[in-house]
């Protein structure tokens, strides 16, 4: 797993989870992750794929520092990396407006070009609205805007496009890829949607099993502009044949 060489001399983000378990109500321990290890090269787009309930969100929470009760290490390339996250739910502060929600997440002294960001995300008219006045799709866009506005070095996303209509989801996917590439962000996106992952990512990390571990590490072999038509279909089919338990389309 150490074979990915860092781009541009920067070192990768290294994740080594030896063991992660949860205590059940009957005091027995359920092991969810074992020997799950991968490293993320800087400025790459990675997707963590697996069936629901296999420990993808748990992995992400460990990376985010929200779950420290595990055996293993997460080594960040720099100690003061800027991290941003998009959770499964938008997690906006209901008592703050769209604009306030985004600005509150900014580090001290940061002044990104929010006008452009709002325009790109279709939020220009929504800045003074409260989250309760928005649809779920709009709330998700605000969560994305908040994550981008931070200008993160590392962006972690947990199924950010579920329950959106395909058209909106597609537009937001393109937007996410564009912004990530433009700002050289290291992305790890959790999803169970293989088609979505294969369209967006440089690299697919497949996890499965109980306890879960990495069962596949696949570089997507074609440029993003070529990811449609028969070639792309063949790639997905091959992926499905090689990882029948993990990849379902």
């Amino acid at each position: 797993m150490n074979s990915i060489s860092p781009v541009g001399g920067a070192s990768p983000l290294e994740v080594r989870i030896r063991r992660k378990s949860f205590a059940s109500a009957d005091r027995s321990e359920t092991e969810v992750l074992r020997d799950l290890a991968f490293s993320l090269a800087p400025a790459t787009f990675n997707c963590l794929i697996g069936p629901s309930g296999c420990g993808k969100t748990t992995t992400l929470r460990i990376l985010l520092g929200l779950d420290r009760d595990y055996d293993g290490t997460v080594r960040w390339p720099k100690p003061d990396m800027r991290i941003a996250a998009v959770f499964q739910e938008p997690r906006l502060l209901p008592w703050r407006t769209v604009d306030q929600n985004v600005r509150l997440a900014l580090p001290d002294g940061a002044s990104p070009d929010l006008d452009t960001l709002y325009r790109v995300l279709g939020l220009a008219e929504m800045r003074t609205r409260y989250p309760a006045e928005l649809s779920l799709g709009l709330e998700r866009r605000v969560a994305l805007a908040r994550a981008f506005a931070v200008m993160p070095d590392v962006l972690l996303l947990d199924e950010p496009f579920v329950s959106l209509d395909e058209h909106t989801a597609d537009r937001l996917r393109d937007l996410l890829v564009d912004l990530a590439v433009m700002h050289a962000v290291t992305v790890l996106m959790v999803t169970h949607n293989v088609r979505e992952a294969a369209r967006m990512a440089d690299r697919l990390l497949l996890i499965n099993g109980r306890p879960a571990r990495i069962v596949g590490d696949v570089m997507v072999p074609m440029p993003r502009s070529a990811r449609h038509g028969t070639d792309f279909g063949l790639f997905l089919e091959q992926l499905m044949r090689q990882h029948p338990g993990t990849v379902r389309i």
Partner: protein
Amino acid sequence: MTNLPLRSLSIVAFLALWAALAALAGRHDVPAPSTVLSILIREAQSGDLFFHLGATLARVVAAFTLAMAAGSAIGIAMGQSRVTDRLLDPWVILMINLPALVIIVLCYIWIGLTETAAILAVSLNKVPNVIITVREGARALDPKLSEMAAVFRFSRWKTIRHVVLPQMQPFIAAAGRSGLSLIWKIVLVVEFLGRSNGVGFQIHLYFQLFDVASVLAYALAFVVVMLAIEFMVVQPVEQHLTRWRSKPA
């Protein structure tokens, strides 16, 4: 305000009942509403009324601010930390069961017949109620929003101001509402026992003279002040703080 006519009717009926009972009793210590009103006017013209109302109001504001600040801080700490809760809970139970009079007498004996002792005594009587109400709110804080704040590296102050306090607002408001009426009643006792101005002091004076009309005049005047605070301060502030809730259709 469609219920305004009903409310006015209720007040007129109350005054009529009072006047009738006073006429029926025909005694000096059961004064008619008109007698009380003429005393009110007399005291207002001499300026005494406003001097004593002002003194009491200042004590109410000071004791209220102190009790709310201390009670909220302790309540949030207890709601968030199980250890703090277990350590302080017996103290809270002790304080809430200690009669107001005992706390007042002890403060006056230990600190002296001073303004500090008076305000501290009133605050100490109110603090345990605030703690208990606010603690409930702190136990119900949404961990998802706290996680969001942690991931985006909100400072401690930013988290309290934008994430914690807005969630606590209904509980703090409830504590404040019940607090204001409780506090002004205790302030009167404190003034009665050991101050040389304020509504409580005046009531003490007229009690010794058996002047029921003046006692009622001062009590009613302060009730009016409290009503004014309710309509001119409490309700507008609440409306401002809950502006983000979507209005019922």
